[in-house]
């Protein structure tokens, strides 16, 4: 890492602090049914519809592991370049809450299904490796709804028992920007794998953030605080910024940092103490006697590995090597699965460089303006592809293409139809062009003379005039050639 370009330090009274951040990402496993019951997992169902006797913890009900969820966790582990543990154990994490029907959450404590791994971030100052401590499977709790009634709390168990992967990073992150890149990278990997949809609004991706600070050069970690369930990357960055500064202020005022859990207040952009270490729950973890330890066959892992889709890092390498894209371009294209899918659809039949320019340029501008994602793009990949082909084949000029693109945004219309119905096809008939050029030259005799006496800059003026007369349809290349001849 190039230290000179990395400048996320907090300076206070001539002391310089660095910020140490570790993340616990909770990612909902993409699966049709829950981790230990056959209930569906669909989002947005009416309350308490997707609930089985197991999810509601009726007497005598027993959990049975969903093999698909296990495979999803293994795939994610492989995507994080992590060690897959052939032996793992489900434990009970005991605590009382109204939306936790069993009175315990089934999780993995000492023996998680996935061990250490690594993800690579592309930062402006170079690549940075972030260590993964572990990934484990656990059940989600239900949802308590406190604002429906002044006196009662309502409980919705639809989410109760849904499979989550908790991905714990090592304390390797050093700035809100790195946190941003990390979450996006993890999300992207899981979306490529199809193991989590990464939808933060629907709560399929949540994170707890551990923050501590220390003087630059100090090798020991400071006392950390955990910020719970911050539900967007933006808020996460604000929360870290606030929390790090709060800790520095405390230290500079001669106080000690208490290890505690803090809540982020997104209205005031501050964090507040939720509970201190002394109030921390004693979860009384112990192996769930209703479930046998999870033993995986190496062959299962090998098969999953074999069928793994191309992941962003590999895709990027390929785009650079085989498509001759710059690292910057490749990075943008692979950052989200939907973008690379779109790109790969466009280049099935058209030029890679042009496709890259159009996607990262004009298309992204439109998406940004409309604040939508590429999967909601008003211009479909196939139509963009034929637009690009009309440019490469000389059917339309780049300028006309921009005009056509404008129209395409309104409704996802085939550019060929637009070009034909509006008569925008490029004029490439040399005889017709010559006629226009001669007309322009004879209308501007003075300028022709100035050109011939050395004012070669005027060439552009003549091109412009030709384009104007031709309503922009003249083939610029041909115009250039003919003009040069005529002006000799």
């Amino acid at each position, binding site marked *: 890492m190039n230290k000179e370009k990395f400048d996320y330090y907090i300076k206070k009274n001539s002391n310089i602090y660095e910020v140490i951040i570790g993340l616990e990402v909770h990612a909902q496993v993409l699966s049709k049914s829950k981790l230990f019951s056959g209930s569906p997992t669909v989002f947005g169902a009416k309350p308490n519809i997707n609930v089985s*006797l197991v999810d*509601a*913890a*009726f*007497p*005598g*009900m*027993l*959990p*049975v*592991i969903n093999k698909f969820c296990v495979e999803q966790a293994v795939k994610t582990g492989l995507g994080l370049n992590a060690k897959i543990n052939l032996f793992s154990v489900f434990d*009970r994490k*005991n605590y*009382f*809450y*109204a939306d936790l*029907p*069993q*009175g*315990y959450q089934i999780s993995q404590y000492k023996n998680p299904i996935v061990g250490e791994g690594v993800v690579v971030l592309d930062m402006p100052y170079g690549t940075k490796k972030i260590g993964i401590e572990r990934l484990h499977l656990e059940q989600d709790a239900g949802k308590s709804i406190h604002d429906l009634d002044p006196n009662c*709390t309502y*409980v919705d168990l639809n989410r109760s028992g849904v499979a989550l992967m908790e991905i714990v990073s090592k304390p390797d992150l050093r700035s809100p920007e790195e946190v941003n890149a990390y979450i996006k990278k993890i999300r992207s990997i899981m979306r490529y794998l199809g193991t989590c949809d990464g939808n933060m609004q629907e709560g399929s991706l949540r994170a707890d953030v551990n923050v501590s600070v220390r003087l630059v050069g100090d090798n020991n970690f400071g006392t950390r605080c955990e910020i719970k369930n911050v539900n967007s990357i933006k808020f996460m960055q604000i929360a870290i910024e606030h929390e790090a500064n709060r800790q520095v202020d405390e230290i500079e005022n001669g106080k000690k940092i208490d290890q505690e859990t803090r809540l982020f207040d997104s209205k005031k952009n501050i964090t507040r103490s939720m509970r201190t270490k002394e109030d921390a729950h*004693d979860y*009384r*973890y*112990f192996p769930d*006697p*209703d*479930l*046998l330890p999870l033993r995986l066959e190496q062959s299962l892992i090998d098969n999953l590995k074999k069928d793994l889709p191309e992941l962003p890092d590999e895709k990027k390498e390929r785009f650079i090597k085989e498509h001759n894209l710059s690292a910057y371009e490749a990075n943008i294209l692979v950052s989200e699965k939907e973008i690379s899918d779109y790109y790969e659809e466009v280049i099935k039949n058209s030029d890679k460089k042009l496709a890259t320019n159009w996607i990262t340029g004009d298309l992204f501008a439109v998406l940004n303006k409309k604040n939508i994602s590429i999967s909601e793009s008003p211009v479909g990949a196939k139509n963009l592809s034929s637009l690009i082909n009309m440019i490469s084949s000389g059917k339309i000029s780049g300028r006309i293409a921009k005009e056509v693109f404008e129209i395409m945004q309104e409704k996802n219309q085939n550019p060929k139809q637009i070009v034909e119905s509006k008569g925008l096809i490029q004029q490439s008939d040399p005889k017709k062009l010559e006629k226009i050029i001669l007309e322009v030259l004879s209308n501007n005799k003075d300028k022709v003379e100035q050109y011939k006496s050395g004012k070669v800059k005027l060439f552009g003026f003549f091109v412009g005039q030709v384009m104007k007369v031709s309503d922009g349809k003249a083939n610029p290349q041909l115009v250039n050639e003919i003009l040069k001849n005529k002006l000799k």
Partner: protein
Amino acid sequence: MSEIIKLTLNELVAGIKKKKFSSHEVTKDFVNRCIKSKKLNSFITDNFDNALKISKKFEIKSNQNKQLPGIPFAVKDLFCTKGIKTTAGSKILNNFIPSYESTVTQNIWNEGAILLGKLNCDEFAMGSSNETSFFGNVENPVGKKLVPGGSSGGSASALAANLTPATIGTDTGGSIRQPASFTGTVGLKPTYGSCSRWGIVAFASSLDQAGPMTKNVKDCALLFQVMSSYDQKDSTSVNFTRERYSEKLNQNIKGMNIGIPKEYRVEGMPSDIEKLWKQGIEYIKNSGANIVDITLPHTNYALPTYYIVAPAEASSNLARYDGVKYGLRTDGNNLIDMYEKTRSEGFGDEVKRRIMIGTYVLSSGYYDAYYLKAQKVRKLIKSDFDTAFDKVDAILTPSTPTSAFKIGEKTNDPVSMYLNDIFTVPVNLAGLPAISIPGGHDEKGFPLGLQIIGKAFEEQTILNVAYCLEQKINFKNQIKDWWLK
């Protein structure tokens, strides 16, 4: 023809199949006897009217190929029964009606049996005398004011009093074998994983097993064969080929090696029990089997180990009874207050005691010293048995250190109560099968049991040994129907 209610399960099945009597006649006789036997308090919920109706229907559409055709059958109230209140002997489930049927009871109904009612038991199966039940003490038909043992006390009492031709219990630390011993009946704790736990109110998941309680060994084999099945809904259910235990039952134990563990000679054990055990050893020798002295060196640690593991699991298993979803709810000022009031009111003293012990041994700072150590000792106990079973086919021990005691005698002394499980608990910790059969009477005339422990999934062996011993012992219960109105 002798009285219907005195017949064994096999005799009743044969009688119905040969149309000597009908399912309805049988059911009627048992229902009448149950009604006259309310004093024993063996039932929590009766299903008499329903049973009579169903038995009548069975006449019309009888399926004689079933293994328990039209047999009225009462079960411990720890098994969830669809549409019938299931309490686990607790106030906290006093209003709980399951919408589902446990796998084991379903297996029994699938073979034609008819639910007669739900039998009393210690609260959440925690107890050795049935005195922890919210629904009151159960009396042992053997004698007035005598406990029937526990936790399957209602089951043992009903069986011994001829209120049901056979029944089922659950055994976590001896809850089938000890009451069988106290009532002069036969009780089998199967290998862990043989009978599905699905739909049984959980006490300690790694120890709980359902098992048959019957009048003789032949009945036991038949009922066990019906109960045991592989169940995908229970992750600890084991998929193995189950024997036709009943058809394969025989008394030939010639050449078998039967182990006698010296550690089961405990200090202060009544001489009657010692005598009984010696008598059993003689019978074994006479049957052509070899007696082998063995050692199970960690036996002494079994009871403390059990009283860490079982409460630890129970403290977590019982967390779901919180007043939120079903069962008792006592309103409070807030969520925590509601929890506290509901659980204070809903659970009895023994259950609370075990929840507290379990919570303590799992707490951070104590986990390693208690729970983890107990798990290690548990492994040692299991390996003791593994070593012993290299040399022997089965192990013979007494079932309990005493015969039935008086109601109230031990209620204020939990440790002396816990000592009742001293011979039965190691078997649960090791996950092995064991059967208790009546071995004789003590000087008070109360029944005493002998326990035969087997290798995992070798129930057939211990059933055969028990069958052989049963013939030699020729036990006759001396129950005198004193409770009848």
